């Protein structure tokens, strides 16, 4: 459907990709050149490739008359639209479009949002003041490492910064945390890339204090004033009242509520505990206009009045105070932050890079609706149609950067398409903002209201009927269960995201079975048993049940929330004898070969590192297989013996007789070469595995982008050893264990969720948030990075706080949705309940309180659907088009000995024992052979200079030398115009050789051969001339003279002219 903005809500398993591709084809086929002006945006490189190859594959099939179903769908919609005069011939159209795309592939615009943005940014680098021709740095951690280190180095020199840092450390000590703040600074530093920060910055109406130290200091003192005024006022007042009370000898018993909420106890609380909050019972008395004292006292009136004043004051100023307090705790952030921003700027310039995390933020300032035609002009792409996938993960800035394209498309009556599913939005921590899909887009484009259509894709092609039904009901009930709470703001997002219309899916009609089982492990305060291990124990039963029903390990996907959970469940599964594919099992560092290589690198950098030596020995022994004596290995280094080591290491590893030195060549190599050598020496190439390949690749990439020295690589390794992993190789068998985040988009026949119990209000590791307020003085900073604690609900930051909380909850519900919608055939959910409230309680809540579930919920087990044998359901996998072959070994050979290059340094320099000198002889030889006649001296010198043979200081000197030679009485004649000079000409011989004498002078049949020599006279010199003579004779020259010109002292004095006869 063209000519408008289509927003597709595509729930899990609803064939989103096919829809997208179909829409694309519709546009592409309606005009064979349309692909050029159509941009499809995807989120990952993988998705990009997948979509491209899907489009191409469909086109191939269509052009061969295949894919009938799709063809007729396309035909219908193309005809309907009446875009075409004739009935479309899908087959021919497809061939034409296919051909166009294959031969104009650069205009086949399917790309990730990042690469699109980078392209725009590149074309505006100069105008934006960014480094022209920048590279893109993907490793944000590396950048942060660098700039925080620089920041720390300024401590002590930069007084204000030092103060901020000092405050910061104090704060951390107060929190009982470690004082090594480098890592923590990195966390704050991460915020300079966060969209939340930039959003605040852009939204802020007043000018910002960040970056201005004076203003920062002012603001800090203003905020301090709010805090201290509040505290001082109340404290002073309380002190006064206290002395009134005490002077009157009143005690707790004289007050209403006595020591629990009496006025006296309130005063004491203020003074001793710095707790200013009036208790509920005290407020009750005040609210009822009652007397605070039970007994009569002359001071009663004073006390009553003064306490009321405090409470009044408290209520009036509380919001400001809480706000000030929240900011004040982290006031150092403001200072540190602006410094980091500057350092980041320097970093970009110095390294000529853009940090990929930074790109959308920087582009944001450029992208505006008015400027967009100019931008696309400079860019040179004319985008008329646009499609955006996974829209729920789009960030506000990304949307902003794409918006002009969308507007452009709809206002020119072309096509725009947005596809996504709010329920599957789980990347908020990467700035994804599902609100855009929910409502933002429509709001932003309200001018085009009548052109926007919303549609839901609600057929589930992935899961079997019973699972689809379960999820439909489950999430409807879950949402209504949660909605009983009174957080309207949260409910708004949740209920709209899970609105019945978009949630409830139809079954595809082809998959009519499916099975769901939930088991709850109730928490018992008394016994405090570990429900997690109960669940793990039970998982064993699930696995054996699956085995009995014929499921294979790679039919099973285990979904977890965190890395720790993954490790825990993986080790359980491994202990049962299954192969596991998990993040950990794929870690490169998991391989003994890799560990040996790392130890070898360490050993080579420090030959007295015994641990490294032992590590080498140990891993080498494992790799060699067979029995090994562990003690011999570990105790080899005792008393510096190392005999065993020397005994079993490969011979090539050593060179010297004493075997204490590492082979010299190893000392001579840079990182990548070194590793290849080691691979070769230790014969690791004889048994290829993906770990070594990945390790080599890591080293290769590292040396490409960094200083390739071993020390820094080892450091890099240290920080990344738990991140670098191999991809899952084709044809691998094993149970997959994965985090839900990673599993998004995947499916599996069976899914097990062993720990369905994450916290509803936990937001990963990020405990702080950006908040702002338009109340002075807080409006002077665009935003503050404060701890997201619940008292913010009463602060000026309430709006930000509530939003944050609502979105966090939604995230956690979405995770559940993503997890529940992965399986095709079976879903197992274990709910190990915990002391704290978690999503698990909600699940149990649903099972208990809604009849459709509670009926089937007995003994903590809920079951629905039917268990079929695996073989009954398997539809047979699609045949792979491409064959996969396994490569069992690879080549790592030392190549130096067989390589030929022609050295450019050509002995232009000569080195003797103590010196390196320019080989002037060779140089003069070179100059002379460029010379045609004496007139060419200037040109010849100039050209040698331009070509870098001599520098400007030397030109005069060499010029003199040349002139001296060409004007020398004996040879002058050769450099005059009387001859045809052959100085750059070659003689071809019939044997296929080319010969180039230094200088041949020709006049008719007469020829003079001249060869320049710079060394001592040698016999061979004459031989060469004689060979030339023979050639020239064969060429028909009759009168041939031959000369050797010795230019010995290089000072332009010809040493000797020697005629050869």
């Amino acid at each position, binding site marked *: 459907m063209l000519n408008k903005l289509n927003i597709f809500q595509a729930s899990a398993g609803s064939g989103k990709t096919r829809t997208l591709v179909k829409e694309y084809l519709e546009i592409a086929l309606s005009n064979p050149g349309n692909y050029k002006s159509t941009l499809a945006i995807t989120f990952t490189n993988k998705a990009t490739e997948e979509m491209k190859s899907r489009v191409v594959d469909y086109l191939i099939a269509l052009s061969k008359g295949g894919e009938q179903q799709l063809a007729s769908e396309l035909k219908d919609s193309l005809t309907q639209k009446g875009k075409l005069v004739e009935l479309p011939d899908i087959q021919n159209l497809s061939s034409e479009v296919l051909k166009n795309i294959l031969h104009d592939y650069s205009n086949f615009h399917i790309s990730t949002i990042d690469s699109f943005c980078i392209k725009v940014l590149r074309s505006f680098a100069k105008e934006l003041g960014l480094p022209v021709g920048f590279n893109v740095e993907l490793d944000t951690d590396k950048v942060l490492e660098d700039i925080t280190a620089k920041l720390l180095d300024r401590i002590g020199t930069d007084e204000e910064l030092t103060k901020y840092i000092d405050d910061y450390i104090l704060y951390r000590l107060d929190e009982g945390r470690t004082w090594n703040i480098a890592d923590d600074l990195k966390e704050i530093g991460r915020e300079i890339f966060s969209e939340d920060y930039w959003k605040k910055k852009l939204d802020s109406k007043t000018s910002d204090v960040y970056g201005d130290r004076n203003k920062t200091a002012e603001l800090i003192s203003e905020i301090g004033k709010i805090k201290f005024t509040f505290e001082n006022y109340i404290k002073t007042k309380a002190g006064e009242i206290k002395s009134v009370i005490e002077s009157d000898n009143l005690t707790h018993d004289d007050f209403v509520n006595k020591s629990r909420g009496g006025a006296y106890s309130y005063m004491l609380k203020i003074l001793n505990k710095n707790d200013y909050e009036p208790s509920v019972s005290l407020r009750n008395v005040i609210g009822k206009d009652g007397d605070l004292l039970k007994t009569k006292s002359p001071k009663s009136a004073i006390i009553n009045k003064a306490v009321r004043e405090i409470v009044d004051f408290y209520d009036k100023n509380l919001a400001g105070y809480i706000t000030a307090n929240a900011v004040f705790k982290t006031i150092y952030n403001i200072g540190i932050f602006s410094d980091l921003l500057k350092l980041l700027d320097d970093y970009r310039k110095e390294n000529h890079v853009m940090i990929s995390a930074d790109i959308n933020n920087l582009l944001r300032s450029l992208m505006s609706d008015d400027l967009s035609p100019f931008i696309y002009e400079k860019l040179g792409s004319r985008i008329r149609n646009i499609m955006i996938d996974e829209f729920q993960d789009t960030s506000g800035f990304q949307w902003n950067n794409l918006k002009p394209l969308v507007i452009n498309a709809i206002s020119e009556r072309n096509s725009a398409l947005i596809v996504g599913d709010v329920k599957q939005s789980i990347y908020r921590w990467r700035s994804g903002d599902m609100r855009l899909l929910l409502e933002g887009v429509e709001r932003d484009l309200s001018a085009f209201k009548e052109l926007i259509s919303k549609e839901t894709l609600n057929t589930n092609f992935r899961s079997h009927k019973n699972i689809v039904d379960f999820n439909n009901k489950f999430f409807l009930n879950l949402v209504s269960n949660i909605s009983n709470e009174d957080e309207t703001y949260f409910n708004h997002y949740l209920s709209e995201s899970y609105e019945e219309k978009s949630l409830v899916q139809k079954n595809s009609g082809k998959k009519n079975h499916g099975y769901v089982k939930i088991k709850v492990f109730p928490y018992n305060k008394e016994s405090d048993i570990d429900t997690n291990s109960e669940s793990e124990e039970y998982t064993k039963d699930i696995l054996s049940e699956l085995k009995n029903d014929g499921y294979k390990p790679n039919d099973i996907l285990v979904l977890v929330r965190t890395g720790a959970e993954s490790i825990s469940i993986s080790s359980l599964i491994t202990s049962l004898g299954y192969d596991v594919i998990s993040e950990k099992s794929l870690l490169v560092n998991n391989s003994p070969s890799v560990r040996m290589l790392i130890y070898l690198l360490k050993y080579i950098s420090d030959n007295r590192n015994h641990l490294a030596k032992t590590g080498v020995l140990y891993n080498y022994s494992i790799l060699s297989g067979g029995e090994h004596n562990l003690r011999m290995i570990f105790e080899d280094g005792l008393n510096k013996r190392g005999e065993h080591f020397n005994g079993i290491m490969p011979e090539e590893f050593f060179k010297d007789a004493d075997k204490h030195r590492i082979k010299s060549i190893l000392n001579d190599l840079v990182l990548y070469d070194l590793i290849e050598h080691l691979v070769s020496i230790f014969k690791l190439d004889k048994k290829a595995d993906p770990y070594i390949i990945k390790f080599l690749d890591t080293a290769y990439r590292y040396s490409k982008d960094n200083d390739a020295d071993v020390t820094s690589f080892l450091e890099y390794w240290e920080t990344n050893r738990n991140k670098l992993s191999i991809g899952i190789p084709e044809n691998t068998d094993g149970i997959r264990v994965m985090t839900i985040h990673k599993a998004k988009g995947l499916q599996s026949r069976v899914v097990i969720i062993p720990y369905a119990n994450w916290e509803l209000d936990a937001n990963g590791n990020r405990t702080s948030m950006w908040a702002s307020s338009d109340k002075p003085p807080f409006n002077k900073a665009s935003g503050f990075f404060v701890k997201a604690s619940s008292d913010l609900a009463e602060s000026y930051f309430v709006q930000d706080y509530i939003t944050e909380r609502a979105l966090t909850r939604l995230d956690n519900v979405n995770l559940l949705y993503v997890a529940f919608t992965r399986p095709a055939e079976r879903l197992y959910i274990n709910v190990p309940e915990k002391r704290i409230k978690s999503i698990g309680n909600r699940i149990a809540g649903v099972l208990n309180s809604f009849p459709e579930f509670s009926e089937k919920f007995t003994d903590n087990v809920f079951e629905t659907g039917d268990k079929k044998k695996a073989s009954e359901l398997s539809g047979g996998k699609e045949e792979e088009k491409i064959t996969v072959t396994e490569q069992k*070994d690879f080549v790592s050979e030392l190549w130096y000995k067989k390589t030929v290059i022609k050295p450019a340094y050509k002995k232009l320099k000569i080195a003797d024992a103590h010196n390196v000198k320019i080989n002037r002889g060779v140089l003069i030889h070179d100059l002379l052979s460029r010379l045609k006649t004496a007139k060419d001296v200037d040109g010849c010198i100039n050209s040698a200079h331009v070509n870098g043979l001599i520098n400007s200081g030397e030109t005069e000197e060499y010029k003199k030398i040349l002139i001296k030679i060409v004007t020398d009485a004996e040879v002058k004649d050769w450099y005059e115009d009387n001859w045809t000079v052959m100085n750059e000409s070659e003689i071809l011989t019939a044997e296929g050789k080319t010969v180039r004498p230094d200088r041949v002078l020709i006049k008719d049949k007469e020829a003079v051969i001249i060869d320049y020599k710079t060394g001592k006279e040698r016999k061979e010199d004459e031989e060469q001339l004689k060979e030339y003579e023979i050639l020239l004779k064969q060429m028909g020259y009759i009168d041939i003279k031959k000369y050797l010109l010795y230019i010995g002292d290089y000072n332009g004095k010809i040493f000797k002219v020697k005629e050869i006869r």
Partner: protein
Amino acid sequence: MDFIKRTAELIYENHKDNLKDAAVVFPSRRAGLYFKKELSGLISAPVWSPSVFSINDFVVKLSGLEITDNLTLVFELYESYSKYLETESFDEFYPWGEMLLKDFDVIDKYLVNSDLIFKRIKNEKEIELAFPIEVVEDVKKFWSSVIKLQEENKYKDNFLNIWENLNSVYKHFKNSLLSKNLAYEGLAIRSAAENIYKTVLPYKKIYFAGFNSLNKCEKLIFQTLVEKKIGETLWDTDKYFVDDDKQEAGFFIRKNLKVFENKLVESGTELTKGAKNISVTGSSLNTGMIKAFGFELKKFLEKNPGAEKNTAVILPDENALIPVLYSLPDNVDDINITMGLPFRTTPLFTLIKIIRKLQSGKIIEEKRYRYYHDDVIRLLLHPYMKFLFPEQIFGFIREIKDTNQTYIEPSKTFIKSLEDGLSKDILKLIFKPVFESADIIDYLSELSDLLTLRLEEYGEKGDNHKLFQMEYLYFMNSNLNRLKDIIDGKKIVLNQTTFWNLLVQQLNSSRIVFTGEPLKGLQVMGLLETRNLRFENVFMLSMNEGVMPAGSTFNSYIPYNLRKAFGLPTYEENDSINAYYIYSLIAKAKNIFLFYNTELGNDVKEKSRYILQIENELRNINTNISYSHKINSYPIAQLSEEKIEIIKDKSLLSLLKENVKRISPSDLSKYINCTLQFYFSKVIKLETEKKVEEILSPASFGTVFHETVRELYKPYIGKGVTEKDIEDIAARVETDFDNIFMKVLDSKEDLKYLNLSEKGRNTLSKSVIKKLVKRFLEAEKNRLPFSILALEKWVETGIEIETGGGRHSLNIAGKIDRIDESENIKTIIDYKTGDSKLKSLRNRDTFFENLFTDPGYKANFQTFFYVYLMYLTEHYDKCKAGIYALKEISNEGLQLMQDDIFTQEDIKLFGEELTKKIEEIFGSEIPFTKTVDVKRCEYCDYKDICGR
């Protein structure tokens, strides 16, 4: 039929009598070599060769200008630019300058009128007046988007400001080059083209052979010469892409054939009819792809012995060169490299960067220059350095680490002790402080000379590794000469930051061009180098989009539609050129192997369009092609964790007794954590790596804190401490902390070089300790009054245990942070700097069990251990024990294990359990094994051995 061969034959036919009359111009020099070889096959006696040029050489000859290097050009441009526009420092300008240079170059190559292209347009009418009709549309497209922007917009203004001035910059730049007889390519060819009509050439015929895309200048030159009947054009074509007008490989050829004649009569049919094997292999990761290539090549050569000399390995991505070389199988005998190697992948470049850091980070103190330890160590471990004095260098590095020196002065210390000679000179030179451009240049060229010498001296004869290093050095040296020349010539001084940035930037983007022996062995080459050549077997790597072809990031400041209007090439043209190369290569080959990377990433895109084209078109057209496409994968081995079990047999037990004669609480804690860890660290003392501590490590931090407190309390030992005393101490901390602190550091061998009074992060440790001490004193007030009995007290005593082999005696010992006394009750106190919390003794049964099995009870265990030690040695029977957990000190103060004093019973119970534990260690029953609980491994140094 081979294009070059046919060319040779044609020319031989035409000029048999005097080949010297003919000149041949090829796109590259290399084709000329092959041409001469073919030609010499046709002659029977020696002859003067025809003149053979690459187009560039030919142009230089025609124009009489010298084409100079980029650095010089960008410098010149910088000068011109600064006359009209604001400039940044030169290093920042450099990449921008390079981009402008490219734009100027292309403007000239396409004979563009700079007055028009750089014209600033204010309203659309102007366009029709000023521009030729055929470009008006495109020009309008661009400018109307600018004109429509009415409001002030800083990005637009920035653009216009630059754009308006570019014409002046261009002209100024051009003139200043011409006045020096210098040029960039475009300038030279434009001047050649503009004068071609009147140029007299000393040849009867000039053949332009094997061209594909022509810029306007080339076209003009060819056309003029053809018209003058001197020029002839020969095209290397194949019917496949000539006839199919969508096939981009023929984009230029089709155009050219409309304008020029092809003297070679007809196009080849090798693509449409020739028999070929095409095999495509995908493999994950670049290295995986390269290794898959090595594997295939090996198999291929095994099956086809001798095929090596007809085989070319094409590397479109030059970064792959080194890994590819390592992947050439042993049945390859000779390897010829003809391509550029990015200088940044060389060891020399790394060295330069290390030196840059070293020199930029040096500090001066008391007139002595000292260098940052990290840079020094990196430098010494660089391959060019490490080998100079292998033993001494390792020793020196160890010394730096052992003594924890953050800044060092090697020239006055380490280097002094070395033997005189070249190696020493090199090290001496490197540690000479240098500051500005001229000095740095001299310094670096001297260094490169010395390194050349060192290679001469140490390198083995015929060692090509050495040859490569020499090339690198030579390359850098010529670059330095260039720089020196420019800097001297322009009389400018660059400060060190600018200079280093410039140098590194410039080297970073430069490549060393290797030329091998073209007619022999296996050819490893870039795609460009294959022009016009023929190989029977072709292995082509990196067949991914973004590399093949290079993709659409077009580095130009000229907006797209203006490029189009003025006929400048865009990325579409680049794609066509690339396609021509690859199809020409395939046309001529019989066996073609294509490799691509299947693992997508930010810099790896999907498989190349050429694979799609071949798979879906070419192989359908040519039925003589046998085509295969496969994915290569490396089998994954399921890794199971190795078991480690050290059985305590006789010899081990004796080793144990030998090496463990005294046991401290922390030793036992280790044993409790993991028996294997105990074996590694205590029994065989497997030393872990040392690093220089910059910020105090947690361990040193603890030490320093302890010592500081001891220092402060020293005068009060044995006396009662009053509130006044605490205040006095606090006052001392306030006023004299630096001294106290220095004193403490000085007393510790491994900390005394740590200069914590310097700036930088080092100062943090000091200020943190100061803060902690203050908080500590605050907390102490709650305990007043007390008197201090001992500080940092070492307690050691012998015990006897029962082992299988009889009684054995050993010592238990520990250092007690402090013992104080108040109201007749002694309290044993431990300061804890790490995460520590005492567990309550409420449930005695589980408490004592956990104490000896659960690392979470470490703090309790150690404290209890001290209680027991004091009980044994000094018969403490009425005491309490607790810890100061410094992190929690403000909230918790002193944490006591229990409020009451320890009962005799408990102490004895502890003693019994302790003995049992020690007996277990020295008994043969329980072997040393890995702990089951992986969490205990988190901070263990032996993780990589255990695979945890």
